[in-house]
């Protein structure tokens, strides 16, 4: 049983989408994504001189008529795509509640996974926790594996503090095929923590997309005015904070600046970036925002 946003209409709409990659990968099977190899797809790639033994069906008779030389058309090979969806499963994804942050994040991941599965591509889900902990699913292919994807996402137990680069490194060590990497996280970490992580993904020749997930309570904290003892959900560190309208504005300025830094860094290194505030409609985000940043064709 799929969760609420995944209605038949929503799924039907998702089937119309295709993930866009800005890199060519060597796929394992015939698929719909370009490969650096030449193959038998319908997409023309180049000409080369005819050599005995070439398939006469690919001779370009028009060039022969004009130049009296034999050339054969060569086409791109279209291969299937291997996609890796990394979901932040640290304790901060459970704030203010699992339903308000991690579940929407996993819905985004599942929507993306469904798009991939519907195109008969391979998708693998990774849960990022701590430095080395975290689990990963097997590769799923085909729409019928959607339920497995959902089971995996919902089985996540949130906890711990995420150190992005080591956590990604642990997962990437076992990665054998390049492809599309989608990182879903709240990115509530200093630049010195997320930048190495994203650079690490780049080093594995992955086409990367970063989706930042924030709950409404993180964007507009509803603290009562006065003295607060704020506790970090991951580190359990505590600070005293005097909360009032001025500090609220200050916080929102800091958050906007932090998000801008992530966006700028992603743009600099060619990563698709989008921010999803979890009280937003999922279909609107998937069908409007993600295509707009070039994640879908």
């Amino acid at each position: 049983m799929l969760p609420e946003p995944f209605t038949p209409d929503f799924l039907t709409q998702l089937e119309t989408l295709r993930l866009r990659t800005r890199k060519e990968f060597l796929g394992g099977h015939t698929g719909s994504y370009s490969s650096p190899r030449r193959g038998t797809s319908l997409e023309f790639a180049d000409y080369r001189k005819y050599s005995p033994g070439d398939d006469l069906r690919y001779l370009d008779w028009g060039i022969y008529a004009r130049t009296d030389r034999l050339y054969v058309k060569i086409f791109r090979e279209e291969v299937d795509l291997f996609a890796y969806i990394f979901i932040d499963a640290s304790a901060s994804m459970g704030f203010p509640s699992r339903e308000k942050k991690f579940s929407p994040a996993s819905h985004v991941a599942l929507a993306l996974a469904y798009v991939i599965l519907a195109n008969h591509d391979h998708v693998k889900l990774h849960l990022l926790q701590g430095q080395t902990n975290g689990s990963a699913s097997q590769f799923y292919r085909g729409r019928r594996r959607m339920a497995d994807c959902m089971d995996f996402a919902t089985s996540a137990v949130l906890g711990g503090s995420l150190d992005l680069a080591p956590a990604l490194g642990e997962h990437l060590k076992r990665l054998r095929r390049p492809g599309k990497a989608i990182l879903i996280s709240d990115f509530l970490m200093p630049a010195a923590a997320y930048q190495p992580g994203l650079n690490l993904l780049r080093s594995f020749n992955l086409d990367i997309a970063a989706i930042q997930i924030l709950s409404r309570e993180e964007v507009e904290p509803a603290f009562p005015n006065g003295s607060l003892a704020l506790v970090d959900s991951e580190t359990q560190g505590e600070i005293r904070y005097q909360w009032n309208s001025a500090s609220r504005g200050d916080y929102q300025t800091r958050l906007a600046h932090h998000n801008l830094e992530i966006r700028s860094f992603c743009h600099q290194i060619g990563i698709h970036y989008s921010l999803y505030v979890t009280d937003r409609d999922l279909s609107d985000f998937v069908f409007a925002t993600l295509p707009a940043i070039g994640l879908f064709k």
Partner: protein
Amino acid sequence: MEFLNPTALLGLLALPLLLVPYLIRKKPRRLVFSSLLLFMEAGIPASGRPWGRINLPPIFFLQLLLLALLILAISEPVFSVRPTNIAIVLDNSASMQALEDGKPRLSLAKESASSVIGELGAGGTVDLYVTTPRLTKVRVAPLDPVEAKAAVGAITALDLGDPSIDYDNVLSQLARERRYERVYFVTDHPARGQTPTSRVITVGRAQHNLAVTGFEIHRASLVNARLEASAKIANFSDRDEKIKVVLKGSGTTLASRQVAVGADKTASVSFEEFAEQPSYEVAIEAGDALPLDNHRFAVAPASRHLQILAVTPRPQAMMSLKSIPGISVDVVSPAEYEKSERTGYGLEIFHFSAPAVPPQNPALFILPPGSHSLAKPGAPISNAAVSGWREPHTLTRYINFSLLRPTYARPLKPQSAGDVVIESPNGALAFATERQGVRYLTLGFDPLPFLGRENLPMSIFTLNFIDWFFESGGSSGQATGEPIRLGSVQPGDVLTTPAGGQVSLKPEFGYFSATFYQGIYRRGRGGKSELYARNLQDTNESDLRAPAPIELRGTAPNSSSASVLFSFWPYLLAASLLLLLIEWFITPRMAFFGFGRRRLSGAA
């Protein structure tokens, strides 16, 4: 500046409590957030300041000022100028003799009074009053401060209880009628409330005390020479005491006994078989706060020989009384009564006669004439049946009233307050009354002559009324302040007070009323002397733990007092209300007194 309700100032001590809600409020609310990354720069690590930052908002100081003003307003502050015409009422009752750290309360009261006098403005005048034996002015003319201090120093405490007066009313009346700007009452009673003109200055503190509250010397019966003494010891404290009680006779110790008295209890102790003395004293050996009530005095009971003056036209009937042991009878006719010497008689019997005014000795009126002032006899009846009698009563004990049937009787109609002791269906047959400690008995029948066993009911009744008069001879002494009846005074008669002072008695003296000190008063009459005992009777004076408070309910001040007092609590109250409005304006969500206010504006 003074405060009419200074107790309210204690509320200032509670002002620090206002900090509590702020401290509670300042205890930071613990909230979990996904990441403190964006708070780190502006926040303070919890470990750095474990108690948090005490940052009192301006509204706190506004509330503090508001509460302080309210408390000041409730305490009713008044500005006063130095009064120039005051009265000082000094409590000189017995309890003022109680010792406070070895110093009598009266001394403390005098110091307070002198201090008040010392604060008088130039040209000030003082009227000095004492409370006992009644509220009286010490000097008629107003005193200047120097004279007043001297007069205060001369005041002594009397062995009398507090007069039962409403001090609030009396002090206000003094201020109103005598135009005093202020009336100070220096006493050991606490005060509740103040009035613009009346001030109560309380001296002394609650103390434990033991007291002899009763002492009596009596004979077992008229014909019995054996003396008995009984005393009551009261313990006005919250702990049990064991004390030694000593019986003294004319200064010599006759007997002593240990007695245990429980807290707040009274114990009785009795002595028997002791030598007859003119006067007796019982004392307890207790080093308590009030030495005065550790002693009590009594004189020897009346002689066991009862001397009767019989006024009768029928002497034979009276002479029959001589057959009773211990009774001697002098008979005079009614016409000779006024001329006769009547002192020394324990009982006067008027047989078919009565004087114009009741005599000063106890008297029995048998079938008095119709002009009798105590009870008028009605129509004669024969074989009167007794239909009711007082019981228990000395007059009715041992009598079988079914056998008491006077052959001739005239039922009485009482003309004054008293007890109908025996009555018939037609009216009273025996009417007893007492005036100024003197007992009178009026009979509507004639119990005489005394026939012994031949008329047993009448003989028993005769013995009963002799006992009844005999016991009224009184050996327990009377209260201080009770006058001593002098009777006929001969030139040269002298009365010696307990302190040893001698008062020459004059023939025109009917009473000696200055019996303000406890002890034995001795009246010298020729070669003979008579003793009178006076004791402090007010146990309230002995109970030093919680004197009755003086309620000052605040009657309207007189016009002159208004000129020396300027009350400005209404202005303080108005200022408080203004502050309240300001606070209301500043914090519209203010809850009651601001304690419950929570800043919820950002919690949407």
